[in-house]
């Protein structure tokens, strides 16, 4: 497997080179993007060149205030947006040039779900993850059912299988959505604010599940989140964005600097080291 990233010097803060021995799976190379209302006007928003790499089993957290470009960066990684410059390589493939089906076999995306128009059971929902593997008129095989069942079991949601999606709690729903992503058998698992609207217990639960799955299934996980402490606890790498600029990429310990976080999030805070060596952020209520 070639990884052109190694020969480049564009990665100032690759961090502590976690989990040695495995090859780079995801390589985000100098991707940039610009939104504009129409082509003749100056862009309303720009994402400046961003780069980082991740290995199988690694969790990368993308952090930053609102409108810092987190979701845009995630969409570019997913191949849903074509970057203005640069490229995203997943095991050597450029993600935005993959056909939809081929892409869905490699990349699964968990995002804030759209409301369902018609009632659907959890198992139907999870089986949808097998869609990229079937031809248009194919009926699900035994194998698909086994994979979907395993996916539900892996997120601890087997008991939800026959429930209606409209009748389960937010945390349970998020597990079922995660199970659908797992049944795609992806190499890369992307999550856009998966902990939004979840209570603290469900948030910790979800991140712990992700951490376990990344290790067990060797997924590369990229998660966009506002939860600084959860990211510090579970991420191997953190990408800190501000106004489309990537300020720092590295281990939580190297990115979580008091001055830096205060400047990015515009709020007084302190950073201390937790018992497991990971940083912990405390907000200081301003007087």
């Amino acid at each position, binding site marked *: 497997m070639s990884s052109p990233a190694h020969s480049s010097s564009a990665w100032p803060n690759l961090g502590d080179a976690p989990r040695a021995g495995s090859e780079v799976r995801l390589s985000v190379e100098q991707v940039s993007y610009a939104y504009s209302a129409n082509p003749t006007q100056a862009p309303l928003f720009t994402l400046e060149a961003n780069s980082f790499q991740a290995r199988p089993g690694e969790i990368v957290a993308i952090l930053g205030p609102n409108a810092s470009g987190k979701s845009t960066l995630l969409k570019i990684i997913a191949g849903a947006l074509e970057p203005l410059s640069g490229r995203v390589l997943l095991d050597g493939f450029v993600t935005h040039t993959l056909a939809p089906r081929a892409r*869905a076999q490699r990349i699964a995306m968990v*995002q804030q779900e*759209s409301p369902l128009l018609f*009632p659907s059971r959890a198992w139907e929902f999870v*089986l949808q993850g097998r869609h990229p593997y079937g031809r*248009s008129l194919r*009926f699900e095989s035994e194998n698909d059912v086994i994979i*979907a069942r395993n996916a539900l079991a892996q997120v601890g949601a087997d008991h939800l299988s026959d429930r209606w999606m409209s009748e389960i709690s937010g945390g349970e729903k998020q597990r079922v959505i995660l199970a659908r992503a797992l049944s795609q058998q992806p190499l890369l698992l992307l999550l856009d604010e998966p902990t939004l609207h979840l209570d603290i217990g469900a948030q910790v639960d979800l991140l712990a599940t992700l951490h376990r799955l990344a290790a067990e299934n060797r997924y590369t996980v990229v998660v966009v989140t506002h939860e600084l402490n959860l990211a510090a606890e579970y991420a191997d790498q953190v990408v800190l964005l501000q106004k489309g600029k990537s300020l720092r990429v590295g281990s939580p310990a190297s990115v979580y600097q008091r001055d830096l976080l205060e400047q990015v999030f515009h709020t007084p805070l302190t950073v201390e080291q937790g018992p497991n060596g990971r940083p912990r952020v405390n907000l200081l209520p301003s007087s």
Partner: protein
Amino acid sequence: MRPLTLQRLFLQCSLLAVVLFVVVVIALKLGAVPVSLYGLGRDLISVLLHQTKALTSDYGMIVIEIRLPRILLAIVVGASLSVAGTSYQALLRNPLADPYVLGVSMGAALGAILALIAEPHLALPVWLATLFTPLGAFLGAAATVAAVYFLGRREGQIDSGTLLLAGIISSSFLSAIIMFLLTTLTGHDFRGMVFWLMGDLSTSLQSSLRWVLGVGFLVATGAIYTTASDLNLLLAGEKEAMHLGVDVRRVRLVVYIAASILTGLAVSVSGAIGYVGLLVPHVMRLLFGSDHRILLPTAAFGGAIAVVIADTLARTVVAPSELPVGAMTALVGAPLFIYLLRRRIA
């Protein structure tokens, strides 16, 4: 987990085929002229054996040459409208969408009328002359869906309330234009046209048009069916569908064109029959679930059954006079639409 199997699909479609058959037999029997089941069976068999001369009763002619073609037309029109409605509901992510509510039927009607007006002035080859009205209806339908789709968007997202409003407004605007054309044009059968606009299956078709209708229905429905499992995901949201490997643009284009063909064909031969495309898919969803691999074929059968029943009622309740079938479907459909709307709000 009980994923859909080919066996289950086949079983449920066979069941509906039996229901359709029974409804057709009853429809053949009912009418201003009474026919016995025995005579009916004998006549049908002689037609199947191409022994039309052997028709025993005087009434055989009525049944075979008037009622049967009309019922077959009702089957194709009903199935077309129902499949089109199912498709629009998925395409626009709106459970209240259907060709009539969205104004697409009126667009198709206007297209058909414009084609009728233009046709005598153009020296068209015979094959194109046959196709001309359905083609006009198709273009009218396609243009209306596109217009309603863009009018129904707010901040780049389809908004279901805005979409329905756009449909209702388009519908009344288009029918105003139609009324203007019908009253200013002389030499056309005004009353016949108004009857047709309300939905009317009594016109007998040229045999070439029958072929266009039959083949068009099969091709368009087949095309939509190839996207059945994509539509399931599309209903869950365009972004989700894309990340699950659906080529959203291709599916949208196929369904948009095919559903417009179905609406155009149905309207050009039978006018604007309302509510079939709205009502039938909902009933089928309640009975068979919302998986489009089973919903599309069952909706086709259901639409056929519904329109055959409606048309039979339309030509029998006030016999020897007749109601337009569209009036019949609206009598049942409008209250159901209101019920669905209210349940959705609650």
